[in-house]
């Protein structure tokens, strides 16, 4: 995805040829609409994921998730798949589970939002590796930063940027155009969920 190209595709829909004659919007507005759309498409349809490995020292109880994680798909400790658990589940099993002695982890407990850190249970008595399979939230896109993502995401982002721009109140508002662009984007997002949402 090349954000600068995408924004240039949006200009004619706003009856502009460049940033200079945009009228009711600034270029920053358009990038903000674009970023919102890409973030939502990645969260809803699973456009972006990462597999990475983190070395963990013996005795570590809490480990931060990879930056920009939006959802956990699977986590492995030294190649063994860990069971996902909630705090409520662990508390119901044992009130002092957090003080259990170190051993080989067989489960992880997520924080309240599930996107910041995990607690390993039992905590590792020896050093090892965590392999993360996580869905990612894209970094903020600017005119200079691209994103390695298939082109259907471009199409959704372009249509939603048009929809958002045309929803803006005032003399530049075109509710019918906004509705039509959003309806097309919604159909594409539903298809993307079908194609890319099956891994979880």
């Amino acid at each position: 995805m090349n954000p600068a190209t995408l924004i240039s595709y949006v200009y004619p829909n706003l009856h502009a040829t460049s940033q200079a004659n945009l009228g009711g919007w600034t270029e920053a507005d358009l990038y903000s609409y674009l970023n919102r759309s890409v973030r939502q498409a990645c969260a809803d349809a699973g456009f972006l994921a990462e597999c990475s490995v983190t070395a963990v020292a013996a005795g570590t109880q809490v480990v931060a998730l990879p930056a920009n994680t939006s959802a956990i798909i699977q986590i492995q400790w030294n190649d063994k798949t860990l069971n996902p658990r909630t705090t409520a589940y662990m508390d119901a099993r044992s009130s002092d589970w957090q003080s259990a002695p170190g051993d080989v982890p067989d489960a992880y407990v997520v924080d309240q939002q599930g996107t910041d850190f995990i607690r390993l249970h039992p905590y590792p008595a020896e050093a090892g590796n965590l392999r993360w399979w996580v869905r990612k939230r894209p970094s903020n896109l600017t005119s200079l930063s691209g994103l390695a993502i298939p082109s259907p995401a471009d199409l959704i982002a372009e249509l939603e940027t048009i929809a958002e721009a045309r929803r803006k109140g005032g003399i530049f508002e075109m509710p019918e155009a906004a509705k039509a662009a959003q309806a097309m984007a919604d159909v594409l997002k539903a298809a993307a969920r079908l194609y890319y949402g099956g891994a979880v």
Partner: protein
Amino acid sequence: MIFAEVLSLVAKKVDEDTTATHRYIADSTFTRAINRAQAIFAFLTLCYEKSSVLTFTPNEPSLEFIADIPDFIAPLKLSQGGRMLNQQSLQQIAARNNQWTGFPDMPKYYCLVASNLLAIAPPPSSVTVAQVAIVYAAMPLDGALDLIPSEDHDAIAQGSAAIIRQLILGGQFGPGAEEDLDGYWMAIKRRTDYVMNRNKTARYDTMPAGVTKEGLKALLEKIK
């Protein structure tokens, strides 16, 4: 139908002159509308099929592949050494062997983790078995209308005209798009049915999302 013919057809549909010098709407706007209509068509129907080879790293279970196949939409079939890999979720793969990343061998399963990431299980044990053939639904390049079946080119023109009327001209021009849009979505539905049968026969792993009869009705209502 070649691209210029479709462009001329779209110009007529939106009451524009067929020669570029007399148009109010710029040629680049027509081109973008046609490319959008073509891309939406290909994405929903998965009508354009391509093949390639993906090279995994031995002992590694995942591959970020977008740089290798940037026109990727969805996987249709993966095979290694002529043997098909079965599509599974990561949970299914872990249910078969909860240490699946730890025992490299000949790959048997694959998972599309997201639109940019593939996993194969077991991870390939050598350079030889790390070469995986992929058949995938692809996005035609901008302007490559010949990659869409020619009987659907009229529908692409209808979709493009509707996009121009609804998204660019708007106002009193919007309602005139309904008939064109209807024709475009119906063509997507017909092509989806065809590709669905083709994919079933070929035992492909991904079926086109398309638009269902009910979905189409709801969509047209929403756009009107």
